[in-house]
């Protein structure tokens, strides 16, 4: 069973600020969905290879050639906060 601490830990990992009400509703809904997953544990899969990608493909490699980038204006066009050609966020605490 999914406990409150686990939900809060996962929310923290996922960077989702949930208030108490959201968190407990989320807990109930996730618990229900997780029940659905229990059916999988019935399947014997020890000898089965996992599938990460459906179509067998080889990785194509790109030649090391430079192509034009966006303009600085285009890069910053959608940024919520900008200053001096940079994207800005509230200060990130540094250790030094």
């Amino acid at each position: 069973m999914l406990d409150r601490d686990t939900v809060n830990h996962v929310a923290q990992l996922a960077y989702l600020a949930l208030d108490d009400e959201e968190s407990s509703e989320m807990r109930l809904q996730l618990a229900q969905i997780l029940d659905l997953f229990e059916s999988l544990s019935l399947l014997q899969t020890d000898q089965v290879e996992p599938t990460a990608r459906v179509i067998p493909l080889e990785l194509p490699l790109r030649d090391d050639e430079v192509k034009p980038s966006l303009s600085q204006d285009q890069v910053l066009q959608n940024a919520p906060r900008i200053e001096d050609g940079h994207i800005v966020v509230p200060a990130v605490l540094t250790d030094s």
Partner: protein
Amino acid sequence: MDANSFRTVIGLEVHVQLNTESKMFCSCSSGYADSEPNTLVCPVCLGMPGVLPVVNRIAVENTLLTGLALGCQIASESKFDRKNYAYPDLMKWYQISQYDMPLCGRGSLKISLDDRDKQIGITRVHLEEDTAKMIHGESKVGHKISLIDANRSGVPLMEIVSDPDMTSPEEARAYLTTLRNILLYLDVSTANMQDGAFRCDANISVWPVGIDTGDVKVEIKNMNSFRAVFKALAFEEERQSEVWVKTGQPPEQETRGWVEASGETVSQRSKEYAHDYRYFPEPDLPPLKVTDQLISSLRNAMPELPDSIYKRLIEHCELRSSDALQLIDDRPLLLFFDEAVNEYAQPQRLANWMLNNFVQELRDSETDLASNPVTPQRFVELLQLEDDGHINSKMTAELLRRMVTSGKSAKELVAETGGQITDDDELQKMVAKIIKDNPQAVADFRAGKKQAAGFLVGQVMKATKGRANPGMVNKRIGKELGL
């Protein structure tokens, strides 16, 4: 427990920016030094919605080349994974990296310390992408802010992880310099630590002798030079021993940062960034097959590496060991030497002139090998002029200085000012004149002050601006003085 009864275990993680033209997963230029912020950015390296990565072939090849140079097992099949962590300088909030199938597996690196060789195990070498650059400052209205420049985002980064095989800061330093040299000779990176092209994090544990070394380890970050790595490890060795002495317990497992100004490591308690990277296979990139064909073509293209260069310089060129090492540590200088020695049969003499006078001249005139006008051919020509007696060694030094500053060849300069004076008659006249002009010195000599002869020789050399053949002048002065 006394301070001498400890042993130290050190492992190093080195991140190397590969010197490709374009980035790891997109075609933006990776040459971000001196660029205007956010001008080498496209939707892919900005992590815009809907973008997909495409792998840079040269980044893969350079990583394989490094793996081969370190004797690593090369994976026949490798893959990329997503490493999830939330930090503002990571554009997608996951880094495309490699988890359980790196391009290169186990290998080793030989280091030499006090004429003793030691093999340091290499755990793995894998490929990933760099993050954006963040600088911290204040906004125009005085808020504390961090500024993000995405030009560095997506530059290819190769991670080389060592086994915890090093037992002292000295060994760690030797490992880093040896590794750095190999990367330079492979020409896969500028490996410049100040520019961030070569970064090192260290794991260090100190254990009392007699206790099995366990898992507890301290990770040290923020070391921006080889010197910093050495000093931080030395500091940490002592700090951890003290913890043992005081508490009888191992030091806490933690991440510590090196603070250059105070010369110490300090604990980095990061409250919010819980580390659970949630690696999973990158669905946007199929697995990478490394063919035998590719491996053998890379092997064929493998440049000569420091170890065999050293052997060559010692065995074929018969250089002094210290000179060989000095040349290897300065790759452009070695290339210069190699080119010159092709046309010059006295390698040690060549090395002497290069490592003493030439290096000094370059430093004095604030230039470097690449931008100064002296070519290996001209350098050899200069030495040959002396070998053939056209100039003396004093002139050689003088000419070298003028070659660096004027851009002219030794022959051109000799043609302007004249070569060494070896004509008997001419020298005889000068010696006679100096004897005549310096009666006091002659008298001193006759009175028993033998060093007065040297003074007279010096006067002749001065009068000829150093061009007189010093041996001949010596002989002649002696004769005049009746020796």
